[in-house]
């Protein structure tokens, strides 16, 4: 049940939060150069972008965003600008990597190809219904272990591949304050499927997905007032990932986590100044947790668009009164569905 993914089916979407993209693109050149790249410039960034030449690359700026989504209340600034890239892409698969993340080396010192690994993850089946203790059974040198039901060995399509980060791990502001010098040096050589029903934080730093199967569920729902450009100030990807996992589980697809790693530089800033803003976020996920653990999408929803349309109503109903952030998220989800349909994003 593995699929063949052609280079022409992939878009690499990069959110440009800082003007100089050249070092990033040069570092990734061996792995990016075969693919079409969509760069979305943060609408709040004034300076011109510096882009290394020699890529098949299209830039979208504030004016493009306004032309398409002017009447929408969705905030496409900061890290959320990448979602515009998902909207305008016409490829089946999208790979998205943060601007502060470079190719990582494996323990032998070899520079790893995160793009190829994401493509492999998406091309091979996921196994969400039963946990394989040797992790990805489709990897060479591994298989399903004794006791794994044979009827489940075909797996299901993988629609989301969540990669990891060496060096500066994706910690929240509180954890980073307590452990400012901790660096992730542990290279865990595994890809695994996150089981059906299990929730996880799907960091947007290093991610790939099947845009046609899951795209509408990767959505810019949560944007805090005064949210900055640093990852630990955002939860847009976390909210998006929770929605995407629920949708994926409902549609019978799979989500993988693990390889590939990227080497994350981070931006060198310490979160101490932002800790007072953290109290809002600290509670948010805990408030949303019971909702995501129990949410049930109806059988009528057979596509990601249908699922998101239903989810937004349930978010409004069950979480809207808990916090204005959730009420806005529900509105943003509705608008996202409308946008997705109106720009023909479901087309290839």
């Amino acid at each position, binding site marked *: 049940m593995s699929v063949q993914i052609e280079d022409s089916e992939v878009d690499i979407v990069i959110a440009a939060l800082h003007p100089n993209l050249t070092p990033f693109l040069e570092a990734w050149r061996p792995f990016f150069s075969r693919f079409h790249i969509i760069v979305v410039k943060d609408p709040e960034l004034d300076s011109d972008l510096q882009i290394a030449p020699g890529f098949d690359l299209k830039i979208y700026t504030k004016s493009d965003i306004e032309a398409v989504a002017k009447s929408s209340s969705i905030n496409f600034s900061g890290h959320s600008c990448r979602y515009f890239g998902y909207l305008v892409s016409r490829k089946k698969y999208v790979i998205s990597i943060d601007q502060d993340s470079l190719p990582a080396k494996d323990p032998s010192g070899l520079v790893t190809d995160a793009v190829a690994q994401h493509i492999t993850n998406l091309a091979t089946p996921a196994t969400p219904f039963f946990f394989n203790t040797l992790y990805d059974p489709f990897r060479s*040198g591994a298989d399903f*272990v004794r006791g794994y039901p044979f009827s489940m060995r075909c797996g299901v399509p993988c629609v989301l591949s969540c990669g990891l980060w060496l060096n500066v791990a994706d910690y929240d502001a509180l954890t980073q304050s307590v452990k400012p010098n901790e660096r992730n040096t542990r290279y865990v050589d595994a890809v695994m499927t996150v089981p059906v029903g299990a929730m*996880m934080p799907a960091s947007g730093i290093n991610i790939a997905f099947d845009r046609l199967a899951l795209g509408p569920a990767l959505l810019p729902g949560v944007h805090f007032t005064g949210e900055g450009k640093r990852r630990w100030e955002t939860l847009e990807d976390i909210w998006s990932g929770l929605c995407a996992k629920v949708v994926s589980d409902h549609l019978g697809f799979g989500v993988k986590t693990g390889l590939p790693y990227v080497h994350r530089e981070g931006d060198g800033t310490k979160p101490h100044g932002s800790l007072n803003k953290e109290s809002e976020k600290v509670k948010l996920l805990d408030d949303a947790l019971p909702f995501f653990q129990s949410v049930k999408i109806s059988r009528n929803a057979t596509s990601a668009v249908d699922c998101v349309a239903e989810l937004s109503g349930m978010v409004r109903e069950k979480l809207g009164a808990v916090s204005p952030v959730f009420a806005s998220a529900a509105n943003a989800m509705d608008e996202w569905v409308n946008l997705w349909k109106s720009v023909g994003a479901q087309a290839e």
Partner: protein
Amino acid sequence: MATSGSVPTTPLLKDELDIVIPTIRNLDFLEMWRPFFQPYHLIIVQDGDPTRTINVPEGFDYELYNRNDINRILGPKASCISFKDSACRCFGYMVSKKKYIYTIDDDCFVAKDPSGKQINALEQHIKNLLCPSTPFFFNTLYDPYREGADFVRGYPFSLREGAKTAVSHGLWLNIPDYDAPTQMVKPLERNSRYVDAVMTVPKGTLFPMCGMNLAFDRELIGPAMYFGLMGDGQPIGRYDDMWAGWCMKVICDHLGLGVKTGLPYIWHSKASNPFVNLKKEYKGIFWQEEIIPFFQASTLSKEHDTVQKCYNELAKQVKEKLGGLDPYFVKLADAMVTWIEAWDELNPTASASTETAATNGPAKK
């Protein structure tokens, strides 16, 4: 969140942990484990011919039980303990008086990590059991309590204390734990991938629990670790640990306990005969297709607030829902009930009957 600071030493727990080893041949493998196992008490469960003498290397503190001992100690209840199958090891869990059990097969040796250092599997299992699990939300950096890791952004703060860990499921380098069909298709495949992670199996997710390299908290989950009816006189084999794992996981999920998998690795040296394995597994391969949906759909209620109550309820459900699949499951359900009766008899709680438990078999030193 997990705390930073210097790496604490793992306690030995030598008076709180028993090592249970089933064997029919010899225990030479213990020589390699001596530096790691010698401080601990061993419970050896001798399967097969009880007249055969099992040679235990000098210097180990152990008690050994053969079939005669099992029959003597359990009387008619001995019928629940498998004969001529390593499933008999669960008798060792029942007679142990310790809080923790580590069980290992006699063809499992000390493995090396990628740096070439010998792996102290027991120490890692102890670390796994003493640290909380995180069954309610998956942490993408795996075990957040490990040195150098933590909970990632987006992990709910209310869940960061974790849950008590009931089971630590280790893995195997070299001969992987494949079923017979896979062994036959890939006779030369060896597991050479060292995955440097411990993780919690999420609540609601089942997995194949292998008994080759396994540790658990006997006080938290012991009665659920019954390895079923296998071997001589039974229609299947090589599903003992699987059966225990599925019962255990349903109960752990219900009671809010965690199950970890991943490190430590041991070196599995012996590939069993795939043709023999196929005969043993054959029915299991088909039955499993009914068994898994059964466990996935199984529910327990608030009144099932101890492992024993959960297990007896499961036994009832097994008889009701799987009894029609094959009469074996009726027998198995009865054996599950017998197991709990025997467990409670040998492990009375303070509030239970004052009748003392049957004594252990004499330590044959």
